[in-house]
């Protein structure tokens, strides 16, 4: 009784502090937490791009159904409305918009923007050739718009700039707006102001889009589909929220129902859930402290804690002789403590997986288990009212003992199944592992296909291959980009690359701007050269005074800067291609465009980069890079799982001090893991990083059961039936809560849930069969407990 107050006071204080921490926690749901914390600089750039870059801000909209006119009208109306919405930085649907400012910039800055401006072009010969080209164009229908510009721009620089900035491949258009190639769906592209990782803002933008659409399309038989990273994040978050609530409720309901059936006491259930709730609260607080934010998936994973942590109170209630039974602590605590330690070893693999999201799950679970066990050991016994007793479950136990004894006679099944599992795994080894990180993505296939379809119909740069160059300043990075694009131009000319998009097209480096300005001759010189160049031409030099005036002005015009593009479509275009990374360096991204339907000639591009001699230039294959990143983490998870397994074996060896006993504990666990893995293989499920970790959890959780059987095999337990009943009950709650997790539509949760639920059951069954404990349990009921030194 003397120790009673401090333990309870300490416990309540801890809960209060954790409550405060949780109240101040930030909860997030974006899936980038499950992107690896990239170790290399290149990968960090990549992850940053996916999280905050231009790619992450794109929203694609498809409108199908109805007739083409209705789709086009809705597309126009939607674009017009959303352009007024501050949440969207740009809305494009292919209809000609008002690009007055952009046109003015192109016209005014044509001599620094045009890639054709060189000193030669303004010599007599160059002028003659350029003007002849323009006159040819005047003969064409395309010349109609050009006519009014000839006097100011006879060398056609405005057109050259417009050509360079124009989308290479115009998307298909139906009724004047972009559409899929078959014309059945109108397509819009929007860019949000908020970064893709800002799920809150993405969800708000998406909701605004949907609401506006509903208003505009009311009464029309049209269907809207919206895709893009931000939308997917928002959807994933909604799924997570929905699943977390549902799973927690399902799991809790199952556990409470079972305990109610067994205990027949509301008080017992309330007390039994105390360790679980304490563990959950402290676990969340620990994650919040350690990571700054708590991920929704972590909360979802919390349901598994209900199943695992409730075990401790089950052991206490069912195995205790009477309230305040000091013997329980003496007899069972060392076994439970060892089980907690092996579980910690298992969950540690999550902590060190390198994926922040999984590390959260690990920290949460470890903290939760330790707290739940400690509360069961130190707090709960003192809270039990005098004479507290759950219903005697010895009857159930005796039934189980008979079942176990019968099953033990068929113990050969365990090695037979294990051997069969090895054969299955060996024959499926080629398709055993999941190499794609997308397996972790909760986005449903139909959404993914819609995204691919809309992207394809825009024919934009494939957003897969890009070249990144760095510089300490904007100027340095732009200059580096220009060096690279100069060699890329060679590839484009040779037909080995369809094109590229570079920020230097919108904003040439100051050096290039200066060089172009210096290419321009003075008024008197230009006038004389024009006179020579235009001898015999239908265009007389005297008519080109506006040209001479413009060139003179361009020679002394102030430089074009990021600031001078503010508020234009050009600024938005640059924003995604030229940005400052967290280290303060400037990065320019050059997007590569393959020919329609073909792949980028990567060796040729790599050669061009090498020829450019830009040290910082890196060719990034977004998809390959992500897969590499993932496979790196897969290997790491494999190593971590192996290490976790090693720690578990060492813990057992240290506690049990007998190789034979370690073997006896490990045998059902290893057999169980093999069978579960084989079951996945047969079901056609490829094992991902998460399955791997889940298998380790099977070992960690299964070891709790195996340890009890090991204890029963070495100790004469005078109430073995009751112990077996408590194990069955504990196992049932674990299977139920992980089973609930397997109902989740989120791959992360489903993989862990299904693997652990099946694995936990199989390991218990195997442990019972292998231990031959049936006999031990059956004959031990009239002798006193006599403990061997298991775990000090």
């Amino acid at each position, binding site marked *: 009784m003397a120790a009673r107050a401090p333990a309870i006071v300490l416990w309540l204080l801890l809960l209060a502090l954790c409550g405060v921490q949780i109240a101040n926690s930030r909860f997030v749901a974006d899936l980038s937490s499950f992107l690896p914390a990239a170790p290399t600089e290149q990968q960090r750039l990549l992850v940053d791009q996916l999280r905050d870059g231009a790619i992450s801000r794109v929203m694609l909209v498809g409108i199908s159904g109805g007739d083409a006119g209705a789709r086009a009208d809705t597309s126009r109306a939607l674009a017009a409305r959303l352009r007024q919405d501050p949440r969207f930085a740009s809305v494009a649907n292919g209809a000609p918009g008002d690009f007055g400012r952009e046109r003015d910039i192109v016209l005014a800055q044509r001599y620094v923007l045009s890639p054709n401006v060189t000193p030669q072009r303004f010599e007599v010969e160059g002028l003659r050739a350029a003007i002849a080209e323009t006159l040819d164009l005047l*003969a064409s229908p395309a010349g109609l718009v050009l*006519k009014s510009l000839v006097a100011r721009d006879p060398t056609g620089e405005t057109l050259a700039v417009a050509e360079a900035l124009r989308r290479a491949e115009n998307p298909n258009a139906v009724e004047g707006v972009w559409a899929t190639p078959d014309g059945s769906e109108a397509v819009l592209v929007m860019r949000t102001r908020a970064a893709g990782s800002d799920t809150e803002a993405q969800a708000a933008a998406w909701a605004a889009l949907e609401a506006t659409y509903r208003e505009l399309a009311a009464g029309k038989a049209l269907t809207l589909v919206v895709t893009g990273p931000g939308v997917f994040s928002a959807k994933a978050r909604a799924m997570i929220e929905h699943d977390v609530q549902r799973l927690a409720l399902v799991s809790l309901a199952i556990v409470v129902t079972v305990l109610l059936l067994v205990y027949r006491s509301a008080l017992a259930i309330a007390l039994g859930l105390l360790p679980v709730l304490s563990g959950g609260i402290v676990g969340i607080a620990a994650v919040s402290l350690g990571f700054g934010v708590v991920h929704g998936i972590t909360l979802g994973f919390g349901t598994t804690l209900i199943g695992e942590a409730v075990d401790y109170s089950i052991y206490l209630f069912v195995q205790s002789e009477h309230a305040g039974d000091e013997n329980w602590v003496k007899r069972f605590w060392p076994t439970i403590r060892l089980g907690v330690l092996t579980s910690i070893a298992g969950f540690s693999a999550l902590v060190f997986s390198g994926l922040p999201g999984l590390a959260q799950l690990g920290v949460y679970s470890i903290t939760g288990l330790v707290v739940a066990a400690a509360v069961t050991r130190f707090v709960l016994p003192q809270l039990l009212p005098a004479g507290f007793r759950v219903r005697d479950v010895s009857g159930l136990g005796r039934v189980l003992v008979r079942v176990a004894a019968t099953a033990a006679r068929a113990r050969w099944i365990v090695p037979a199944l294990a051997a069969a599992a090895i054969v299955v795994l060996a024959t499926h080894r080629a398709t055993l592992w999941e190499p794609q990180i997308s397996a972790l993505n909760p986005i449903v296939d139909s959404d993914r296909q819609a995204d691919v379809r809309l992207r394809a119909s825009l024919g934009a740069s494939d957003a897969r291959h890009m070249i990144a160059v760095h510089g300490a300043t904007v100027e340095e990075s732009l200059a580096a980009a220009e060096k690279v694009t100069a060699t890329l131009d060679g590839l484009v000319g040779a037909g080995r690359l369809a094109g590229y998009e570079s920020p230097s097209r919108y904003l040439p480096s100051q050096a290039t701007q200066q060089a172009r300005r210096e290419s321009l001759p003075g008024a008197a010189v230009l006038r004389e050269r024009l006179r020579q160049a235009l001898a015999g031409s239908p265009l007389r030099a005297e008519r080109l005074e506006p040209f001479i005036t413009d060139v003179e002005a361009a020679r002394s015009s102030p430089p074009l800067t990021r600031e001078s593009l503010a508020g234009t479509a050009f600024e938005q275009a640059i924003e995604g291609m030229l940005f400052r990374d967290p280290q303060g360096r400037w990065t320019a991204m050059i997007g590569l465009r393959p020919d329609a339907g073909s792949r980028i000639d990567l060796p040729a591009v790599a050669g061009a980069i090498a020829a450019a001699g830009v040290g910082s230039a890196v060719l990034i294959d977004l998809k390959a890079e992500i897969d590499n990143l993932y496979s790196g983490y897969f290997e790491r998870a494999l190593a971590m799982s192996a290490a976790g397994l090693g720690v578990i074996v060492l813990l057992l060896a240290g506690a049990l001090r007998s190789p034979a006993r370690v073997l006896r504990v490990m045998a059902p666990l290893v057999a169980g893991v093999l069978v579960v893995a084989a079951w996945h293989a047969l079901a056609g499920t490829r094992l991902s990083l998460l399955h791997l970790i889940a298998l380790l959890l099977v070992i960690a959780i299964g070891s709790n059961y195996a340890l009890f059987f090991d204890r029963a095999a070495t100790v004469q337990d005078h109430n073995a039936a009751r112990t077996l009943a408590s194990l069955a009950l504990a196992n049932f709650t674990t299977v139920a809560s992980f089973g609930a997790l397997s109902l989740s539509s989120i791959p992360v949760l489903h993989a862990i849930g299904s693997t652990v639920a099946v694995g936990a059951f199989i390991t218990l069954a195997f442990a019972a069969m292998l231990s031959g404990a049936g006999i031990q349990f059956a004959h031990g009921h009239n002798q006193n407990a006599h403990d061997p030194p298991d775990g000090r």
Partner: protein
Amino acid sequence: MKRLLLLAAFAAAQAPAADWNIPTLFAELARARPERAAFVEKKYISILDRPVESSGELAFTPPDRMEKVTLKPKPERVTVDRETVTLERNGKRQSLRLRENPAVAVLVESVRGTLAGDLAALSRTYSIALAGDRAAWRITLRPLDPSLGTLVERVEVAGAQARVGIVEIFQADGDRSVMALSPLAR
């Protein structure tokens, strides 16, 4: 070619016969088969001392497909298919929709509508006047929409029987283009 021009000019001076009018002319044009013609186009632009000239082939496939392939001075292809105008030049393609580009539409429709004999469509966009007789006629199209009148003042199409011979476009700024067509064997 010259003879055709002369004929047309001569015919224009005459009042159309009573039993021959705009609807009968267009009905005849509408019965025409797919056609291919060589064209020579001259553009008179105020800033230039001489017209710029281009030539090539023009093909029309009823009811609404027209293809203009320029061979000189630079190869180029303009295809008009229903609502879409596609321009191919220097290996690049560019498409636009007539509905969004009324200035282009007013030019395209005058030629295509006449070739197709689609009086209903033409009357929606232009006021139509006819001069001459069946052997040498000239129709004058003026955009009904005054905002288009600031670009194209009028389009004159001259021909004989069911065949279009000359398309002349008068722009509001005084520039004009003359396209002469001569049938090619199919």
